């Protein structure tokens, strides 16, 4: 009796499942509703792109708002977007952008040069009426990328001139090598001034841009719903009628949901699951180009890590390939430079620190530590894309170094004190990483290793005047080849000094159902879904 019942239940369930599918099919057949569900691990912080640095936010604003320029689908090469052309003066102090005409925001207002100006002023001027600084809005990415804010000496933009409705000129105080890259960043996407007026400080929950999708609703920690913008400036796009960004914090749960067809795309696949997904019928595996690296940093000012031999020894003692294979299931490459390989100026000639315990021991002996030594390793308490499992990495490092005769004491700190204390140099060794945003080497090399940044983002306390000089020169040059060469030289110097163990560049993996077509993951983690289709 019992068995019969349960099988009945089974068929009933199947029946209703079929019904669901039929409904979906029906809507697909009719060519009407194409709804894509994109699942990710955490919710967005804010849908006002300028005021957040959060990747989960950019992912969505990328669909709703557009910047003057955009990156190529798979690389950081800049391409026209809202600006269909631009002109750079020879001295690199003036950039003129020619705007797309006849573009409207989702609220029906018109996109023009004034709108661009308003947005930039809003970010640069804390007293601007739409700056909302009283409501806690901070445009930190603007400050970082453009050297500060209005009134700061370091602020790079001197003036923004509206030439006419569709022509706008940025006048700089000094040249900035990656100005165009900046203009392509999702953080500097243009919001409708009318919407700024209308929503005020609530703009972060009501994004209004010119992008392929309109914002519909946001239920926190659950779903953000976007729908097709019928008047999108490119005909025929977007293909989808609706996009839902759903939050599923747990990686394993997300994969289960993907398998059962509840969602279409999932970000943040466990590298270990990738192989299975690749083989699985009905699922597709995607990889994102690497745009980050994780490292074990040395406090180069603190004994014994102030000795370059010790630093090199540690570099030799760590088995990067094993970490990459093990922790990232091969979806990572060992890093030899503090810059992802796809970047311009990546120096492939820098010699690797091959995994060699004996050599490490020799170097240690050279430094006077033939009997081994004891070092602290600070472990970050939170997972980051470049370091999905810091604890395990720490234990592996600990084990590796033990082989070379170095006893590692793992130190744990809360995230805030971790960041604070590593800035003041309390640590010996520490773990951290860096992710690219605008595809420019400067964002990696200067931030992490320029002597000026000691006390802010340079936590290795590495200061090398030569390196600093090279980086400074590259920053102001507008000749991309020259810049690449300068960065390449800098990398060679850095490698000799070994201020950090560059561990791996991780290649994030994603999975989709086979129905998803034309999906191209971008290294910045924010890709446009305008061309994506469901079969």
């Amino acid at each position, binding site marked *: 009796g019992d068995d019969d019942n349960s099988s009945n239940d089974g068929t009933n369930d199947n029946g209703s499942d079929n019904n669901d599918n039929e409904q979906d099919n029906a809507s697909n057949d009719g060519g009407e509703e194409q709804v894509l569900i994109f699942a990710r691990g955490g919710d967005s*912080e804010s849908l006002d792109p300028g005021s957040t640095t959060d990747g989960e936010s950019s992912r969505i604003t990328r669909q709703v708002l557009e910047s003057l320029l955009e990156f190529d689908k798979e690389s950081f090469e800049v391409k026209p977007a809202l600006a269909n052309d631009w002109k750079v003066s020879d001295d690199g102090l003036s950039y003129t952008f020619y705007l797309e005409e006849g573009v409207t925001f989702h609220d029906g207002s018109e996109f023009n040069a004034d709108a661009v100006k308003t947005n930039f002023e809003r970010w640069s001027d804390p007293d601007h009426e739409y700056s909302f600084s009283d*409501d806690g809005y901070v445009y930190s990415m603007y400050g970082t990328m453009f050297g500060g804010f209005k009134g700061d000496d370091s602020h790079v933009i001197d003036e923004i001139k509206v030439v006419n409705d569709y022509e706008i000129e940025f006048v700089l105080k000094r040249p900035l090598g990656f100005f165009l890259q900046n203009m392509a960043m999702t953080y500097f996407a243009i919001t409708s001034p009318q919407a700024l007026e209308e929503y005020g400080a609530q703009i*972060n929950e009501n994004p209004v841009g010119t992008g392929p999708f309109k914002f519909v609703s946001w239920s926190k920690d*659950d779903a953000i719903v976007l729908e097709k913008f019928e008047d999108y400036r490119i005909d025929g796009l977007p293909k989808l009628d609706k996009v839902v960004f759903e939050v599923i914090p747990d990686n394993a*749960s997300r994969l289960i949901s993907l398998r*059962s067809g509840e969602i279409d795309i999932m970000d943040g696949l466990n590298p270990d699951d990738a192989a299975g997904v690749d083989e699985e019928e009905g699922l597709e595996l995607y990889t994102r180009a690497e745009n980050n690296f994780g490292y074990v940093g040395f406090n180069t000012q603190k004994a014994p890590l102030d000795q370059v031999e010790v630093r090199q020894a540690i570099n030799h003692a760590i088995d990067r390939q094993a970490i990459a294979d093990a922790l990232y299931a091969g979806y990572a490459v060992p890093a030899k430079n503090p810059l992802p390989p796809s970047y311009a100026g990546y120096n492939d000639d820098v010699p690797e620190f091959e995994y060699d315990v004996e050599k490490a021991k020799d170097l240690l002996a050279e430094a006077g530590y033939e009997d081994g030594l004891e070092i602290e390793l600070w472990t970050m308490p939170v997972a980051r894309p470049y370091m999905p499992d810091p604890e395990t990495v720490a234990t592996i490092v600990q084990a590796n170094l033990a082989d070379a005769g170095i006893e590692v004491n793992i130190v744990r700190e809360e995230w805030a004190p971790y*960041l604070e204390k590593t800035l003041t140099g309390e640590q010996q060794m520490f773990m951290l990483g860096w992710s690219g945003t605008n595809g420019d080497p400067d964002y990696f090399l200067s931030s992490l290793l320029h002597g000026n940044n000691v006390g802010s983002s340079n936590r290795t306390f590495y200061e090398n005047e030569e390196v600093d000089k090279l980086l400074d020169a590259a920053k102001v040059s507008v000749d991309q080849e020259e810049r690449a060469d300068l960065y390449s030289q800098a990398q060679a110097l850095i490698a000799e000094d070994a201020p950090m163990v560059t561990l791996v560049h991780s290649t994030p993996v994603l999975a989709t159902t086979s129905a998803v077509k034309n999906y191209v993951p971008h290294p910045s983690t924010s890709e446009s879904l305008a061309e994506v289709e469901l079969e």
Partner: protein
Amino acid sequence: MFAYTMRRLLMLIPVLIGMTLITFSIVHLIPGNPAQVILGETATAEAMQNLEESMGLNEPYAVQYFIYVQDLLQGDLGTSLRSKAEIAKEIWPYIAATFELTFFAMLFAIFIGVNAGIISAWKQNSWFDFLAMLFALIGVSMPVFWLALMEQWIFAQELSWFPATGRQDNRDPMEPITYFFVIDSILHMDFTRVITTLKHLVLPSIALGTIPMAIIARMTRSSMLEVMKSDYIRTVKAKGSGQFLVIYKHALKNAFIPVLTVIGLQTGVLLGGAILTETIFSWPGIGSYVYQAINYRDYPVIQSGILVVAFIFVIINLVVDLMYKFIDPRISY
């Protein structure tokens, strides 16, 4: 009744003050500077100072606490560091989600627990009793999160009986009205939606409800056994009533009083357990909210989330206390 309610409400005051003291301490006793957390790796000293000032972090603790309580009384739960949104404004959907989940979990726990307890007591020492109590024991010994993972693995992935995550079919999300999705889907007069919403509730409710179910079953059983031994049950039997009347009219009502206490207390366990269950089932409730906040070290949210849950718990226990009056006429206030 009124006097008692008033007295209970007055007695809440010190408890509430104590609760706010504890939640207040969360932000103010954490190691490190909250401003640093907000601004992250790329923080500048100036930005941090601005933020500290705007958060009032440089006032003495007593003043800060006073301001905190004053804000709370005005319904201001602070601002999320992460989303910059006012917590009071964005918290309702989370509360509703948790309420809905806890409600169904409790429903499951009570329904199964009470009935299993009754049958076990009725058929004391039978194989049913033995198995039910063994399961109940295993149930109370089970880590919630582990149960949730196993359930998801078996029933969502392997058997595909129920959806693994979420509250509704997000392909076609509905316009929330009350944010209680079952109610909302009924209000939308959409029957299939009611079914899918309920299906989404099954796994998390069971995961969350298992421990309370086991405890309620055990409590019901022992309470029933106790009551069945009592003089008044003997009287009822001596009147010539059948088992049904004895058990469901007299014994159950009497046995329910201690069970009710357990239900009140278990609601707290449920609310606490929600943190674990919700993250696993991607249930956008207050548990997820707090858990995410823990990951991001979003202290105002941790603070307010905990305070709100504790507040709800206190209120539920108050309601349970007041409910005694309706069940038990002997309680005179």
